[in-house]
């Protein structure tokens, strides 16, 4: 038995979707039953979060394929982006979800990832010990989930990316039956969050020669939605790329990161590769191996034996605009704080060749739709 950690099950609002844990209070210092902070707190500074997350690790029950281990762990920060933090504690990965994440939606997404039917597709979250349906705890103002650690891919692995495996996994995800209950309880996939954010940053600079073609291409999208009329609605990942795969030793490849997962047109999960290909960055043989494996797996997003572009065109255009807008916003120094009155701020990033390809593709999109 590990050291006593004061934990209170947080029943209000989140309907037992999360367990509350003090962000700063050392184990044993909080009397049982004492009300613990679960809203935004100034105490949970970024420096404390990894340690607080590490204290949480032992509360999560190890999965069958994650060896149980003794505390204490030395937390290793694996990735930090804005307020999203991933910390490794031995064989467990702890993820602090962005501030403002809706606890109910996250819990619903985690329950999808925990479905036995998707065990060979999505990496399953670790449940809290003794609470097999609870996959989230709270540290200060952030929700934390726990996962088996696996081997992720990075930019050095460009030639090792498992295109065929990826196509097969996405097909299986999209073939997960969607029932009436899912339509009510599984959130809508977040397929347009980044696009909307980036384009909003660019709007005040519409006359800039790099911004104009991006906004013109954006105008061809109309008002895209996660589900599209006349299209299948399935469980979709919502932000799929090769960084969303991990290999668990002895188990195989699994899809990770359910923050944007939900119901929508499965074509959105092919949008990034489709945009890479259509923008001239991805050789045909790699695109073909992804698409062939997806079709062989019965993936419902594209016709089995017909031109896929009538259905991929809109998602591919949307992601091309998103890539171009992201690069141009960074290039112009339009950071997260674009709502301030100070105009462009932050360090400008150089525009790379791939970024120019996306801007050029935006010009072609505009051209093809006028």
């Amino acid at each position, binding site marked *: 038995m590990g050291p006593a950690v004061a934990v209170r099950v947080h029943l209000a609002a989140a309907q037992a979707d999360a367990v509350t844990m003090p962000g700063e209070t050392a184990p044993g210092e909080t009397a049982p039953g004492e009300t613990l902070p679960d809203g935004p707190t100034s105490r949970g500074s970024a420096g404390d979060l990894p340690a607080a997350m590490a204290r949480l690790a032992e509360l999560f029950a190890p999965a069958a394929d994650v060896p149980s281990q003794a505390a204490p762990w030395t937390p290793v920060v694996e990735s930090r982006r804005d307020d999203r933090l991933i910390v490794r504690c031995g064989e467990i990965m702890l993820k602090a979800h962005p501030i403002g994440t809706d606890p109910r939606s996250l819990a619903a997404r985690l329950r999808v990832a925990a479905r036995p039917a998707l065990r060979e597709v999505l990496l399953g979250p670790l449940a809290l010990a003794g609470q097999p349906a609870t996959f989230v705890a709270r540290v200060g103002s952030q929700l934390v989930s726990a996962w088996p650690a696996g081997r992720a891919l990075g930019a050095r692995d*460009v030639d090792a990316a498992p295109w065929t495996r990826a196509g097969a996994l996405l097909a299986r995800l999209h073939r997960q*039956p969607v029932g009436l209950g899912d*339509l009510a309880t599984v959130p809508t996939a977040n397929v347009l969050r980044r696009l909307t954010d980036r384009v909003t940053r660019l709007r005040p600079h519409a006359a800039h020669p790099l911004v104009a073609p991006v906004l013109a291409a954006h105008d061809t999208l109309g008002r895209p*939605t996660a589900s599209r009329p*006349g299209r*299948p*609605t*399935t469980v979709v990942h919502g932000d799929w790329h090769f960084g969303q795969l991990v290999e668990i030793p002895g188990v195989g490849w699994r899809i990770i990161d359910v923050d944007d997962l939900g119901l929508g047109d499965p074509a959105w999960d092919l949008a990034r590769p489709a945009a890479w*290909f259509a923008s001239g960055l991805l050789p045909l043989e790699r695109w073909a191996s992804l698409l062939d494996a997806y079709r062989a797996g019965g993936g419902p997003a594209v016709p089995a034996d017909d031109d896929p572009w009538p259905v991929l065109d809109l998602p591919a255009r949307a992601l091309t605009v998103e890539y171009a807008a992201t690069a141009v916003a960074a290039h112009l120094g339009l950071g997260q704080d674009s709502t301030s009155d100070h105009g462009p701020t932050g360090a400008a990033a150089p525009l790379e060749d791939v970024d120019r390809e996306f801007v050029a593709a935006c010009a072609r999109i505009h051209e093809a739709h006028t």
Partner: protein
Amino acid sequence: MSYTLQCPKCHAAMRTYNRNGVQIEQCDGCRGIFLDYGELEALTRLEGQWSQPAAPPPPAAPYPPAGGYPQAGHYGAQPAPYAQPGHYGQPAWGHGQGHGRSKHGGFARMLFSS
């Protein structure tokens, strides 16, 4: 869309969601769901639709007839340099001839991040 229903059970406001063209009112309080006449049937049809291969929707922009996507304007001057046995194709604005930029560092990073 513009009206607000009140939940008949707990009297909280109900919010309208669109699920693939079907309007669903869900209570913000008790999460109960209100379906209008015909919506249950529409949802049941959707439920059966999940695994069916997509029928191509009416394209937003005029697509050229079967036989591929001739590229528009001066951007698409080059002919497709490969056979397309498995229906890979590309959109009207596409440059999908794969000119080897995948070795570029920027592309490698993009492959693995949002």
